[in-house]
């Protein structure tokens, strides 16, 4: 049975350091939720508070509506997949998977049947008698998942479990994790610093920085409508122009930047004179288009990526990145060491509060 997880004003302090600051969030039953953020942003601390290895300094964690204060990790309906997997090296694969059932006193015949079932689920039938040290990285990964699922958790917590795998295996495991989540219906809470992982697998993503939850939304919303400058910069590639708000009207703002006056959406209600940054995605920049937003920059080099081309230009605000779909003959002529005029539509750009880095 899958359950929802609620974080109610959760704060964690270690001495003078605040690792997690006032996080409130509701994760639905059966949801695939990811926490995304750079290392040290507090996401692992958050996970350890949900799993019960740490008690929040303030605030409450509720699972399925039940207050988890004072309930240890061994009494919570959660299972955690560790970053290093933490498979028991002295036990066989079957003993590893069956461990959670064994400590619950499940008789060995039923345990055995359940282990077989789980080995089928993770597509490793017949490996039960192997030593975990004899398995490959991908296999160990699956065993760790099977071991966590064996105790039928309501919530499965995953702490960057794919970080040790090579790129190809990582991409394969993303699809597999998503499939297992759909099949079991268990609530998945996934931690990662890799936006690709978060965007491809999750129903919703919470972006964290310095202990603060900056924005919670699905991947597309994060990408198209970032709520903060940090989210805009962390999720996906982007170009940034910092400056001061000169005018506002009809949900739009005009910024005075070193590249001239630029127009974009104003979702946060910036006022005239505010420090702000305007963000525009590389694929929304056009070469020689129309509109009010125009800037000139010098092409420094271009990388051919197959279906698209990344061009890098040096403008008044530093390096700009432009992404152009590759369609053969009609590609715009971005020749290195020549000047190019870039344009973008105001509704593709977003102006957000900026405190400087």
């Amino acid at each position, binding site marked *: 049975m899958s359950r929802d997880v609620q974080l109610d004003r959760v704060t964690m302090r270690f001495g003078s350091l605040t690792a997690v600051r006032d996080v409130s969030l509701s994760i639905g039953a059966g949801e695939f939720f990811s926490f995304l953020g750079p290392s040290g942003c507090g996401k692992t601390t958050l996970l350890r508070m949900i799993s019960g*290895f740490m008690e929040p300094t303030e605030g409450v964690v509720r699972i399925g509506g039940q207050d988890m204060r004072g309930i240890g990790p*061994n009494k919570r309906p959660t299972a955690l997949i*560790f970053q290093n997997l*933490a498979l028991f090296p*002295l036990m066989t694969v079957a003993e590893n998977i069956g*461990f*959670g059932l064994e*400590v*619950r006193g499940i008789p060995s015949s039923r345990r055995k049947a359940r282990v077989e079932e789980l080995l089928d689920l993770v597509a490793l039938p017949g490996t039960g008698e192997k030593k975990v040290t004899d398995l490959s990285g991908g296999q160990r990964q699956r065993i760790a998942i099977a071991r966590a699922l064996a105790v039928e958790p309501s919530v499965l917590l995953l702490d960057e479990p794919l970080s040790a795998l090579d790129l190809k295996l990582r991409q394969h495991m993303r699809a597999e994790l998503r499939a297992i989540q759909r099949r079991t219906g268990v609530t998945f809470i996934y931690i990662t610093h890799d936006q690709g992982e978060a965007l491809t697998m999750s129903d919703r993503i919470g972006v964290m920085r310095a202990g603060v939850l900056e924005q919670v939304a699905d991947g597309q919303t994060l990408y198209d409508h970032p709520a903060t400058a940090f989210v805009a910069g962390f999720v996906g590639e982007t170009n940034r122009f910092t400056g001061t708000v000169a005018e506002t009207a009809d949900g739009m703002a005009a910024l005075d930047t070193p590249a001239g006056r630029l127009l974009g959406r104003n979702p946060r209600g910036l006022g005239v004179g505010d420090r702000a940054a305007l963000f525009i995605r590389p694929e929304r920049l056009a070469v020689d288009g129309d509109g009010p937003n125009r800037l000139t920059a010098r092409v420094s080099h271009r990388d051919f990526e197959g279906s698209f081309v990344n061009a890098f230009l040096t403008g008044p605000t530093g390096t700009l990145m432009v992404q152009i779909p590759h369609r053969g003959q009609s590609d715009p002529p971005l020749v290195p060491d020549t000047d190019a005029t870039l344009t973008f539509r105001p509704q593709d750009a977003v102006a957000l509060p900026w405190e400087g880095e």
Partner: protein
Amino acid sequence: MTAAGVRRFLTRTYLVLFFGYLFVPLGIMGAAAFNTSRFPTVTPWTGFTLQWFPALFADQRLWQALGTSLIVAAGVIAVAVPLGLAGALLLNRLHSRARTFLYAVMVSPLLTPGVIVGISTLVFWRQWFGVSGGIFLTVVAQASFIAAYAMLLFLARLQRFDPSLEEAALDLGASHGQVFRRITLPYLMPSVLSSALLAFLQSFENYNTTLFVRGLETTLTIYIASKVRTGLTPAVNALSLILIGLTIIGAVVYEIMRRREAKA
């Protein structure tokens, strides 16, 4: 000869002298066990005999002393290994000053002369509990410093332990007791065995501490010392030879265990 040649020659000479110094005395003592002379010596060599071995086996008090030594050693293992384990488990989870302080107190008996360990134990137990010297106090006194050796062995292994294994077991629903029994203890098992062997060897050969707390009991080491001073015959050499043989086996086993453990 070149300079390198001279250096090599000097190094070789030194090595031969050093290891000669280490082993020749033991060889002489062993050889004396086969000399017919009444007094243990190799000079003069009066003739080869095996007579001192049967003479040794006929010595009833020797067997008694051996029995006492074994009982004491078993007691020391039973006390020192768990204490050392508890100490290591605690230290491994402490930080900074508390850890440094406890560590210093735990290893202090290793830097204290053995006679003082014996004396303090003797005085304390007589004053507070009216217990006088005997097997019990011998076990207590020896365990107080042998536990430190066990602690050091456990601590070295615990420092290579991945604590997320304990967390994983806990997360899967195991109680703290189950985590300890199923995860921590099996990992520490090689250290349990090597510290038990270390405790046995240390206890078996102890003299300085035992001397003060033995009461009327006689361990094998005490017995050998008394034989050397009164009633010395080459039977003592025969006994020494046997003990050295057993020690070599024990030391080699311990060394193999230690090396295998270091690799795992």
